[in-house]
């Protein structure tokens, strides 16, 4: 455990050193402003980038190893990823036959209503529009 911790600290320090390497040419003034990068700047910047990435990867790897160690000893509870509940199956749609059976009484009532209104005069109390208008004058 201690060796992994020391490794993580060393890798993190190396990542910081890499960051310093990337900015050193500008901080120390060895790279003139506005001019194209000289060989020293390119070397330091590229090496610094590599050191930063390697240091970060090492720190993350050692941290993961420490976590696995702690989990193996039971000091850290490893959370299991929650599975998202599967969506409930949609209610079965009524088939066209069932729909026709459902609507049959309604259709029948409408048909009866229409045929009845065709035989009898309207009895809703309203007079035909043309007749009433003529009488009022």
């Amino acid at each position: 455990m201690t060796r992994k911790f020391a490794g993580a600290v060393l890798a993190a320090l190396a990542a910081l050193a890499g960051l310093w390497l990337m900015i050193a040419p500008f901080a120390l003034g060895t790279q003139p402003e506005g001019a194209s990068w000289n060989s020293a700047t390119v070397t330091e910047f590229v090496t610094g980038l590599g050191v930063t990435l390697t240091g970060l990867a090492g720190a993350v790897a050692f941290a993961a190893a420490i976590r696995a160690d702690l989990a193996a000893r039971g000091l850290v509870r490893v959370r299991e990823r929650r599975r998202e509940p599967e969506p409930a199956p949609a209610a079965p749609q009524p088939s066209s036959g069932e729909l026709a059976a459902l609507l049959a009484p309604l259709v029948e009532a409408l048909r009866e209503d229409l045929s009845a209104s065709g035989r009898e005069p309207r009895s809703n109390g309203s007079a035909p529009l043309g007749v009433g208008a003529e009488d009022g004058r």
Partner: protein
Amino acid sequence: MSARLGVTALALLFVTGLWLVAAPFVVGYQPRGAEFTAATVNDLWVGGALAGGSFLGLAGYAAAALRELTARGRQSAES
């Protein structure tokens, strides 16, 4: 697995530190016989620290692993 990756990173950092120490002379931005430039001094310090630190880390890791192996061997011999 993760620890092995970390050890690999330390080994890479050691090699990079050595490269940084050699870079001013290999790339040629440190003229021969002249006084060290600021870039060279910086590279020597950072490279030396990087190589030394990662070497110490690797050596410590190996020593701890050996100690653990020895302890396990002693335990199995006693039981």
